């Protein structure tokens, strides 16, 4: 999928480069601010990596574009970053992956009101209609695809346990969609606990699940970092043969396992951190091409199986 997006972006670049040079020089001068959460867990680490890479590539392709990248550890810092960008860097466009929806809605709206081009990524704002472009991951699809896979893999039902992420809207949307997808099947959720998208925490929660339940047929770890912790706990208990694990996001270690046909990791569900690259590239295109760049761009969550694992494997990414 990312390859497809790259092809699309590449085609846009080619079109832009074909324009008369004069028009390009005038239109192409722009400063784009990029505000993202700092690398506090694996997925945001991937976001940082892909943002930096997209910026480096775009800078090389369009010397007239200037980028300002800021990473924030909490919503308050992110608001300050955006205010600083407006006050001191005179940005023409803002690409923002909001830390949390509510606190960022007001500050991003002020940027939009000042006539700047605003791209929102992943987490939507609390008010509709502020952004020009919305590049979104699909959390409902993330839960649904996982749920459908469980139904397909366990036609006769079975007992599963679920590890949830940090308590947020994102996590709620995923889990609700998952529960809806397995409704009507004989799959029974025995236990559900928060592992906070953290490998260590997930390891401990899974150890306790294993003590508590004598029979577990599968685990929805709902995140690849957590899945790695879960797998370690299962190995320790010597119950590798009894259950399989479904993670999520598309971390390279997990894709490797799927590719290798690991019995415990039969599949994965994507939620690509590279969506930030899509957003930055589309925003840059707004300034270097005449193609319309407003609207919604939803990035699907797809099932990764041994057959298509190769397309989702990025060996250079830290995630």
């Amino acid at each position, binding site marked *: 999928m990312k390859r497809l997006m790259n092809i699309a972006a590449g085609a846009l670049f080619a079109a832009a480069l074909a324009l008369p040079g004069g028009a390009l020089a005038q239109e192409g001068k722009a400063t784009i601010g990029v505000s993202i959460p700092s690398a506090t867990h694996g997925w945001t680490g991937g976001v940082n990596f892909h943002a930096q890479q997209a910026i480096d590539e775009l800078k090389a392709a369009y010397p007239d574009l200037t980028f300002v990248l800021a990473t924030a550890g909490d919503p308050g810092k992110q608001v300050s970053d955006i205010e600083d960008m407006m006050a001191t860097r005179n940005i023409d466009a803002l690409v923002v992956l909001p830390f949390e929806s509510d606190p960022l809605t007001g500050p991003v709206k002020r940027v939009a009101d000042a006539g700047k081009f605003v791209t929102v990524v992943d987490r939507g704002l609390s008010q509709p209609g502020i952004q020009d472009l919305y590049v979104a991951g699909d959390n409902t699809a993330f839960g649904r695809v996982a749920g459908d896979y469980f139904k397909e893999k366990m036609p006769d039902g079975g007992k599963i346990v679920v590890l949830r992420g940090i308590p947020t809207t994102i996590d709620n949307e995923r889990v609700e969609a998952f529960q809806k997808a397995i409704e009507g099947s004989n799959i029974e959720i025995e236990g559900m606990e928060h592992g906070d998208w953290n490998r260590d925490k997930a390891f401990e929660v899974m150890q306790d699940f294993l003590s508590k339940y004598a029979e577990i047929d599968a685990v929805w770890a709902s995140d690849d970092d957590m899945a790695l912790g879960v797998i370690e706990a299962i190995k320790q208990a010597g119950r590798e043969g009894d259950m399989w694990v479904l993670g999520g996001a598309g971390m390279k270690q997990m894709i490797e396992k799927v590719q290798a046909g690991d019995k415990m990791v039969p599949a994965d569900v994507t939620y690509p951190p590279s969506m930030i690259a899509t957003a930055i590239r589309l925003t840059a295109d707004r300034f270097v091409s005449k193609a319309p760049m407003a609207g919604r761009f939803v990035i699907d969550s797809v099932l990764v199986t041994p057959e298509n694992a190769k397309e989702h494997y990025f060996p250079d990414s830290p*995630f």
Partner: protein
Amino acid sequence: MAVEAREQPARRRLRVDFHVLGPLVALVALVILGMSLNDQFLSAGNVTNVLARSAFIGIIAVGATFVITIGGLDLSVGSMSAFLAGVTIIILNALIPQLGGGWATILVGMLACLAMGLGAGFLNGILITKGRIEAFIVTLGTLGIFRSLVVWLANGGTLSLDFNLREVYRPVYYGGVAGIAWPIVVFALVAVAGEIVMRKTAYGRHCAAIGSNEQVARYSAIHVDRVRLATYMLQGMLVGVATIMYVPRLGSASSTTGLLWELEAIAAVIIGGTVLKGGFGRVWGTVVGVVILSLIDNILNLTDLVSPYLNGAIQGVIIILAVVLQRGRKGA
């Protein structure tokens, strides 16, 4: 303990006993609660899990007991552990071509980890003693520095140990002697050594003396700065020991490694009866405190008593209760 040997009127002794036994009472109460809620609670597997996962915080908290006893504080231990884990993994991976993927590599990695821990502790200690900066500020600074460095080294992602080397290293966490897991053995050895050093050595008494009154300690010809520096280095080295046990568990280090361990260690030390403003430390109490904290998490996972959203609140209540139980009478 020492209390029993003292000759005191019965009434006074009873009071002291209760004060000393506070954390133990809380621990026993938790064990009984756990037993009544889940029959798997006392299974060998579960007990091993709880004690082995306490080992990291526990080993660090033994060091924190000394730091707090001298009236200091080390907020950097969690970040330091993440940083040491990251650099140790990098060193181990880099050594494979020279030393091969066997125990030689792992031993060098372990020694490097200990040495770096001592170095990091020395950095904290020298800034506090020679730099004359508050321990709180110095370690708050190094907390940020170590945490950022590991994120930077991992390029925002996760540092992973070479797969084959990991298989060799794995028994250090998962293996054991006589059915007792290595982390528990190491934790026990560190705790016993800590208790002896605190009670029976000149260094331990100097720690308590500096914590209760630095001026008086100085007039008593105690090398205050030297003892302090040694204490922060001891803390650093114990963080190194904990990290050596941590790396084989998941074979990786990332920005979330060791998050908030410093606060858990401090909470365990205080639950155990060490005085936060210094002057009195109790290593065995710290061990009880660490196990109490682990048990709370374990019991909440094993049962469906409360909404998982409230886990933090339950922990908070129990921490405060455990301290109230042992301080109530003394404060009055």
